[in-house]
Structures are given as structure tokens and as C-alpha cells.
């Protein structure tokens, strides 16, 4: 039977000791540990001083020590031996690639735009939905509530948009495709979370069915969040691909594309729809394949292989933060290079080029047809990505263009994006830019667009006079 003296003596690892002194109190011999005097070069703290000569190996100091590995029983394994920490023993995380499963191509559905986006998300492999009710986006959430439980997925109605976006942070951090549906005021509330998603490089898809603002506004269709999405996605250097569908079919296609881009760049993607598009019913053709998502190597999925994965947006060292920002900026540059998308309608010889997206693009298309009938060489340039703005598609058209007319349901947010893009491209500076705008839940009509193109509009009679008495 081993005597007390024969027990192994504890070892002090001064680099891990913070000098609290609990071990001094605990020591049964009372002279083998003393307060230290020297600052440790590695930790910058003052560890205790350990004199093993008088130690009887009682190990009470080890029990008292609050730090892992500072005071260790003589026969205990060090941190380098830890099965997960050890560089040699921990398995490397592997990316499980997405699978594309053949699907009944050519099948068509007649569905609402919001439902089309939800179906697109399901086909892209999204099985996790976190949302909060807000008109006019709720139909998408309601369809998810109906379908996801049957597909083994999760539908979770959060207590607020703040909670919903942070649930996406959690699910996306776990490497799973997830989404939310919201509308303008709700999107405003999500922005801190969006900034965190971007900072921590976590994917997620947000469908923002825009309504009129500011404040509570109303529930009519608008494009009032273009500025917010392109220039103000929360604090810091934040950007995300912003898709602008214009038909129920594109609601589905863009939803599928959004998940692909979101995981490709590890960045959230925003689908900007408007209130009409969410409600608009149309024919939707289903794709030829659906996606069975894998699991990226960077996911925090709980096993030893993924244990080194840390998702964070905090870098206390300024140089590290700057390097992280540069990395994110490089991703923006890659998105700007690769993801500019636009649809062109009769642009090949257009001299009057209408610029519109979402539902206003449908009226603009009608206006182009009417103008062509009158002999005006009109065309429609329809950005499908508002950020990055598709300048690469626009600039080659410009030499023939004598006039640009921006048609939009906001006070000039799309025009600002256009002007900024042209300015950066150093193109089209001599081309006059006119606009046809409606706000407050109204969309520009074809007649208004035609009037806007033909000549300066007579000022529209102001709406109801506001009584402030």
C-alpha cells in the first residue's frame, strides 16, 4: 500500500497560473506554495511559487485550483495530450458536398409569389424557418408552417425579428440552410443580426417583401428598402447580394439561387420583393433538380472534427480585425465580379432605356411595348441583382442610349444605385437620367411611365390634404 509520501507531487505550470492564491490556503503542509513575485513572460500575470521539497502529495492544492492545467496531479495528462485539442489526434473536418437529386422537370404550379419563394427554398434544401408575423410577408411563413413539419424540418415562430435573425445565426452557424420571411419594419429590426451574420461569415436567406415606410408606413407595395439593403445592412462594412425578382417564377428561381450564393460566399443573401409580388399569383415551372444539402467543414456541428470551428465577428487585435475586414472586402469584390445579373428587353437598339426592377418592371415592360408601337426605340434594363448593380451588363448598351428613365416605387433609391454604379464605372456621364416615381404603397402605372418618357410630367394632384388643426 503506498504511503502518503509516495504519492506523486503536483506540478505547477506557471504559464497557466493566474496567482489567485487559493492553493496557498488549501495546502496541508502550509509551506510548499507561496505568493509569487515575478511577472510571467508569457501570461503577463504573477503565478504562485511552488516548492516541492516539503510537499506530501496530498493534492489539495490541485482540488483548490480554479484553472485547468495550472496545478496538476503529477500523473495527469497535459493539454497537449487532450484527445480533442491535440493537433495530431483530432480528425480534420470534412465537407459533405451538396447532392443534386433529379426532379420532375417541366411540372408547373400556379402559386402566389410568396409561396413560390417558399417552394424554391424547400427545393434548395432549406428545412429550417425562423420568422415573425408581418404583413405582407406572412403567407410564405404560413406555407412553411404547413409543410416543414411534414418534411422533418423546423418551423419556429420567434418572439420578435431580433430573435428570428439570431436563430438564423445559430442554424446557419451549424451549417444548415435556413431562412426568414419579413417585411420592411421587421427587416429594420433584423439589421444588427444581419451585420453579425456577415461579420461571422454565416449564410442565411432573408426574403424582404417590401412595404411603404418610414416607420410603420402601410402595407402597400414599395421598393423602400433598396438603400437599406445596398448601403445599410447594419453597422460595419456590410454588403450582401440583393436579388430583385419580378415574377412568381423568379421568386422561386431566386430563392434557390440565394441559398447557393449564400453558402458559396458564406454571407447572407437578401431577396427584395414587393408587396404585389408576394401576393401575385402566376405560373411557376419547377426545376429539374432539387438540392439535398451536405454539411460544410466550417459548421459548428458538435463533434471532435469540428471542434476548432469558431464563428465570431470580434477581433480585439486591431490588425486581426483589419485582416478580417480585408477578407470580407475581398468577398465583396468577388461577388461584384461574378454575380451581376440583369434581364434585357429590347435593349439591342434602345435609345430610351427604362431601368426598373420588381413589379414596376412589369409596367415598364408594357410601356416599352407601347413606345415601340409609337416608333420610339425604347428598351427595358431590369437589374436582377441590385447589389452588386449590374453595371457590366449596362455599360455596353450605353453608346446608343440617349436617355435613361428610372421607374421605381421609392423616392429615388434605385436611381441612386444606378448613378453610383455609373460613376464607379466612369460611364454614361453625359446621358440625362429622368425618373418616374411613386411612393407610399403605390406603384407607377404604365400611363405614368409613358407620360414620364414623352415629356415632363404635369405635377400630379396631391393626395388627400392633411388636416393638422
Amino acid at each position, binding site marked *: 500500500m503506498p504511503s502518503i509520501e509516495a504519492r506523486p507531487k503536483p506540478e505547477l505550470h506557471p504559464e497557466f497560473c493566474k496567482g489567485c492564491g487559493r492553493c496557498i490556503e488549501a495546502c496541508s503542509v502550509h509551506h510548499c506554495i507561496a505568493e509569487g513575485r515575478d511577472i510571467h513572460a508569457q501570461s503577463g500575470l504573477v503565478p504562485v511559487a511552488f516548492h516541492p521539497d516539503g510537499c506530501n502529495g496530498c493534492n489539495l492544492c490541485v482540488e483548490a485550483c480554479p484553472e485547468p492545467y495550472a496545478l496538476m496531479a503529477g500523473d495527469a495528462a497535459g493539454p497537449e495530450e487532450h484527445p480533442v485539442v491535440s493537433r495530431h489526434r483530432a480528425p480534420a473536418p470534412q465537407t459533405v458536398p451538396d447532392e443534386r437529386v433529379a426532379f420532375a422537370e417541366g411540372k408547373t404550379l400556379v402559386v402566389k409569389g410568396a409561396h413560390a419563394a417558399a417552394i424554391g427554398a424547400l427545393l434548395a434544401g432549406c428545412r429550417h424557418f425562423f420568422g*415573425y*408575423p408581418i*404583413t405582407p410577408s406572412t403567407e410564405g411563413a*404560413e406555407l412553411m408552417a404547413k409543410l416543414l413539419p411534414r418534411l422533418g424540418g423546423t418551423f419556429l*415562430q420567434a*418572439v*420578435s*425579428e431580433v430573435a428570428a435573425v439570431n436563430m438564423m445565426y445559430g442554424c446557419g452557424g451549424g451549417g444548415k440552410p435556413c431562412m426568414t420571411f419579413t417585411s420592411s419594419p421587421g427587416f429594420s*429590426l433584423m439589421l444588427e443580426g444581419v451585420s453579425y451574420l456577415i461579420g461571422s461569415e454565416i449564410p442565411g436567406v432573408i426574403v424582404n417583401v417590401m412595404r411603404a415606410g418610414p*416607420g410603420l408606413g402601410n402595407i402597400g407595395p414599395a421598393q423602400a428598402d433598396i438603400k437599406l439593403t445596398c448601403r445599410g445592412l447594419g453597422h460595419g462594412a456590410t454588403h450582401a447580394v440583393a436579388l430583385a425578382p419580378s415574377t412568381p417564377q423568379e421568386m422561386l428561381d431566386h430563392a434557390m439561387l440565394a441559398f447557393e450564393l449564400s453558402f458559396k460566399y458564406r454571407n447572407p443573401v437578401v431577396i427584395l420583393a414587393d408587396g404585389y409580388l408576394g401576393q401575385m399569383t402566376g405560373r411557376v415551372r419547377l426545376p429539374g433538380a432539387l438540392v439535398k444539402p451536405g454539411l460544410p467543414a466550417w459548421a459548428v456541428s458538435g463533434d471532435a472534427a469540428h471542434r476548432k470551428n469558431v464563428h465570431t465577428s470580434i477581433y480585439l487585435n486591431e490588425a486581426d480585425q483589419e485582416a478580417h475586414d480585408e477578407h470580407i472586402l475581398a468577398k465583396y469584390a468577388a461577388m461584384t465580379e461574378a454575380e451581376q445579373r440583369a434581364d434585357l428587353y429590347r435593349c439591342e437598339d434602345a435609345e430610351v432605356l427604362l431601368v426598373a426592377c420588381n413589379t414596376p418592371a412589369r409596367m415598364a415592360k408594357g410601356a416599352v411595348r407601347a413606345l415601340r408601337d409609337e416608333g420610339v426605340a425604347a428598351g427595358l434594363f431590369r437589374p436582377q441583382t441590385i447589389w452588386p448593380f449590374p453595371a457590366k451588363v449596362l455599360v455596353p448598351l450605353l453608346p446608343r442610349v440617349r436617355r435613361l428613365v428610372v421607374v421605381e416605387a421609392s423616392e429615388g433609391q434605385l436611381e441612386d444605385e444606378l448613378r453610383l454604379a455609373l460613376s464607379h464605372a466612369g460611364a454614361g456621364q453625359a446621358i440625362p437620367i429622368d425618373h418616374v416615381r411613386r411612393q407610399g404603397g403605390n406603384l407607377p402605372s404604365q400611363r405614368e411611365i409613358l407620360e414620364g418618357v414623352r415629356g415632363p410630367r404635369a405635377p400630379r394632384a396631391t393626395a388627400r390634404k392633411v388636416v393638422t388643426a
Partner: protein
Amino acid sequence: MTRLVDLPTQEHMLPGNRACAGCSLGIGLRSILKALDGKAVMTVPASCLTVIGGMYPTSSVTVPWLNVAFPGCAAAAAGLAAGLRATGRDREMTVLAMAGDGGTADIGIQALSGAAERNDDFIYVCYDNEAYMNTGTQRSGLTPAGARTTTTMLGKRENPKDMCRIMEAHGIPYVASTSAVFPDDVYDKLARARTLRGLRYVHMNTPCPSGWSFEPRDSVTVGQLAVDTGLVVLFEVEGGVFRLTGRSKTLAKRGKRPPVADYLATQGRFKGMSPEAATEIQRWVDGRWAEYLRRDAAGATT
């Protein structure tokens, strides 16, 4: 206790409001504003009440009204109370924060909890129609178990939060539970709350014909049945002393309540509910009722 016939006849809510036919919130709001004698300033977040209040620049209530962001009803009320104090008007005017169940128990709870901890000087009324009705009936933290909403297609699984107990735990001067279909009870509680200072919380059950799926003419009978079966209990807690009031007090004396199944059968939202689930709700209600009786007896001896 004020008798119905003795309620003031002066209205502070006007015709032309946008409440649905049969909405019990109209009854509740009328009683509340009568109890405050029309001397109130309201803060209201996005909710049915915003719609009832009317579209800018019109308003269906005769008191000033501050429309606030969804999470901020209690916070805005705290700011408003500070503003009224600074202008010396806090004695004559009552700040009335009024939000729905989602605006109170879900998105608004942190602002409300903060105001309660500071004991800010206003009355907070949660009108509880038991789901997000303004956006088309989605579940909230106060939706009862078994109720179908558009986001709980097969019936909600969880019991609602007990907001009154949450608010009581903050140690505020006055907490009350009432029902919009008992105008006398609403009136008495608001009239009592008006005389106190600090944060006063009133939880008002508000039957909703469209969301709960019953005929508009049945709002009052459904609301009364909720109280009779013990799902909704009328009580007040002032200075920590609990007492049952109105119909719930009568029920306690009578010692007999109709089964919860009678109440569940009146509404489409509970259709298709299994008998076991209904029994479970009955058990939950019985347990709570016994606790209320115990607290009422304890309150009577203090």
C-alpha cells in the same frame, strides 16, 4: 363595485373606428377610457388597436395617441411619462400603454419588464386576443394550448405564459386580470389603477370572432364562458394582496364551474381537438383555479 347602469355615459371612443364586427376590444377600450375620464395619453404599437384607432390623420378616440414601434410600447410610455412629469401634467393625465398579446408577451416583454423594474408611472393594458390577429392569426406566447392558428396548424402544444404572475414577480403596485366583456369589472380596475402611481398592469381577455372562429354576435357569451369555466379569472393584486373580483368571486362562492369542454366547443379554433387534450386543459385549469382560491383565501385573512 360599479353597476353597469352606473357607468358614465360620456364616450371617449367614436363611431367610424375600424374594429371588426363583434370585436370585444371595442367594449374594453370604451370602458377603459371611461374609467380614465378621457384624461389619458395612449401609446400603441402595431396591433389591431392601431387599426381600430384609425388611419392617419383621423382617429377614433378622443385622447391623444402615440403610435410606436412594435417592441417599444412600454419604453415609449416610460418616455412619455417622463415628459408629462417635466411639463407638470402627470397628476391630471394618465399615460396608458396598450398593446396586444404578441406586443406584450413576445416582442414587447423586455421593454415592459424594464419599465416594471423601474416602476415607471403608467398603466399598461395588455388586450389579449390570444394570437397575432392583425396579421391574420399567428400563434403568440399567449395562445392557449390546442388552439389552431396559421402557424400552429395542428393546434398549439404549449400552454400560454402567465403574464400576470410575471408582472407580479416585478413587485409592481397593481396587477389585475379582467375580461373586455365585463365592462363593469374593466371600469373598476382601471378606475382603481388610476388612483395609484407607478406601473400598473391590467391583463384584459379580448374574444376575437374572426381569429377564434365564432359568430360576431357571440363575443360576450364566449368571453363570459371563458370566465365561467375558469380559463380566464378576474382578480386583482394590490400591494401583494390577491383577491378575486366580479364573476370569478361569485364562482368561487358557488363552488361549481362548467367544464372547459363547453367553452372549447364554442370556437372553430379548437375543432378536431382530441378528448385527451381537452382533459389536459381541464386539469391545467383546475390546478390554476385551486391556486387562485388558495390565494384569495390567504388575501382575505390579511
